[in-house]
């Protein structure tokens, strides 16, 4: 490069030359660089611009849209990352930069970051709110299952469902549960169930696996499909310790697919016990009513009128005799009373009778059939009759002496 005659470069030539030097250095190709993000800028074009720095130094970096779109988390200022890329120079500025093709958070995995970010976002939107949780029906007629057709989970689910509640129909929609396109397929399956109204409750899940294997259940598209489902969704992803976004959005979270099946349907044995006790109650209550009725009938039977009609008639007859006797007595009394009264009256009457007066020595004087009460009633020479107790005397008036 150094020649006896100095060469004069244009700035552009210089930068182009340095770019070539950098590009040809194998040590600067596909390298890993760790650092903290600063000056982060997500351009509307999808390119990401940032500065990677540590305690002593900084370097500019860029990640183009094509690579950036594959990131499962959104970089932020202050985030420590492990970047993978190639060093080159941007001729316009003369600054060298790291062209990042992939990156992941240093320390915790990229998936964990993505998980936390989506969780925070959906929580803020209210997708996990208890207000949106739909009740799971107690006796579903159809249980929809969205899982891999060939996995262990589907067998576990079928086994539990047929043991507990064979009366329900199981509708399986086989879905891809890991790898490329799995989230889309799961979301589609949930939508299909809703469009066809093909189940009363849905089990969405898969068996255990690595966080990458379970990743589809952490995708936003699945979360939204679960949230929008009119059919209640029971989420059953992996093992007890695995929590996915799908679990948070679902109406019910089951620790495993088998547990999901147990939550989806009632237990036949328990139901039979319930029926049996209802039957007992039914019989007992009717027995009670019938016993009451029987007691009523017995009470009616005890009454004389039904026991022996003759008794009742005799009793009536007795009553009749008593009444007639009583009437007779009353009548007799009345008659006696009157008899006595009559005797008294007769005596009184007797006392007043003129015959009675005559009997005591007085005589009754009549002139021409009329009782003589005054001297004026007679004239001299009248023949008057004097009634005595034992006959009468006829006499002639000789003289009248006025009183």
């Amino acid at each position, binding site marked *: 490069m150094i020649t006896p005659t100095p060469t004069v470069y244009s700035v552009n030539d210089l930068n182009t030359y340095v770019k070539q030097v950098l590009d040809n250095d194998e040590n600067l190709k596909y390298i890993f660089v760790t650092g903290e993000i600063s000056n982060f800028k997500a351009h509307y074009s999808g390119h990401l611009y940032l500065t990677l720095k540590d305690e002593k130094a900084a370097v500019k970096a860029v990640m183009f849209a094509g690579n950036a779109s594959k990131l499962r988390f959104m970089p932020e200022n202050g985030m420590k990352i492990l970047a993978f890329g190639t060093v080159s120079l941007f001729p316009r500025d003369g600054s060298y930069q790291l062209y990042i093709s992939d990156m992941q958070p240093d320390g915790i995995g990229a998936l964990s970051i993505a998980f936390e970010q989506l969780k925070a976002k959906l929580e803020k939107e209210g997708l996990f709110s208890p207000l949106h949780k739909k009740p799971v*029906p*107690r*006796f579903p*007629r159809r249980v929809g299952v969205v*899982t*891999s*057709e*060939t*996995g*262990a*989970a589907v067998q576990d689910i*079928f086994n539990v*469902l*047929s043991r507990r509640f*064979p*009366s*329900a*129909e*199981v*509708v*399986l*929609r*086989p*879905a*891809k*549960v*890991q*790898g490329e396109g799995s989230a889309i*397929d799961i979301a589609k*399956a949930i939508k*299909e*169930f809703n469009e*066809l109204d*093909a189940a009363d409750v849905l089990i969405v899940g*898969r*068996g*255990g*696996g690595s966080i990458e*294997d379970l990743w589809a259940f952490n995708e936003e598209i699945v979360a939204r499909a679960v949230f929008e489902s009119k059919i209640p969704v029971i989420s059953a992803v992996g093992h007890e310790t695995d929590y996915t976004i799908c679990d948070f959005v679902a109406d019910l979270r089951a620790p495993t697919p088998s547990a999901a099946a147990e939550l989806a349907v009632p237990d*036949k044995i328990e*139901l*039979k016990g*319930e*029926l049996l006790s*209802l*039957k007992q*109650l*039914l019989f007992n*209550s*009717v027995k*009670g*009513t*019938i016993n*009451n*009725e029987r007691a009523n009938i017995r009470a009616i039977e005890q009454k004389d009128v039904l026991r022996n009609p003759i008794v009742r008639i005799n009793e009536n007859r007795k009553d009749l005799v008593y009444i007639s006797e009583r009437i007779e007595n009353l009548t007799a009394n009345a008659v006696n009373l009157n008899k006595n009264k009559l005797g008294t009256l007769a005596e009184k009457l007797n006392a007043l009778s003129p015959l009675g007066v005559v009997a005591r020595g007085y005589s009754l004087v009549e002139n021409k059939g009329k009782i003589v009460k005054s001297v004026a009633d007679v004239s001299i020479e009248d023949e008057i009759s004097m009634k005595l107790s034992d006959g009468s005397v006829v006499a002639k008036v000789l003289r009248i002496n006025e009183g």
Partner: protein
Amino acid sequence: MEQSYEQSLKRLEEIVKLLEEGGLPLEKTLELFSEGTALITSCSKYLDDAEQKITKLLGNGERDA
């Protein structure tokens, strides 16, 4: 089953309650009793006779866990 298991069970519980409260004419009591026993029979039958039916919706499931 003509009505759902849920509806049948609900009716059954209602009948038991009515009968336990009592005070109904004997005829009505017997009517409810026979409705109740019929419901118990059909519910038991629903639980016992069923063999799980599995249907499949078209999908594109793959061979994985």
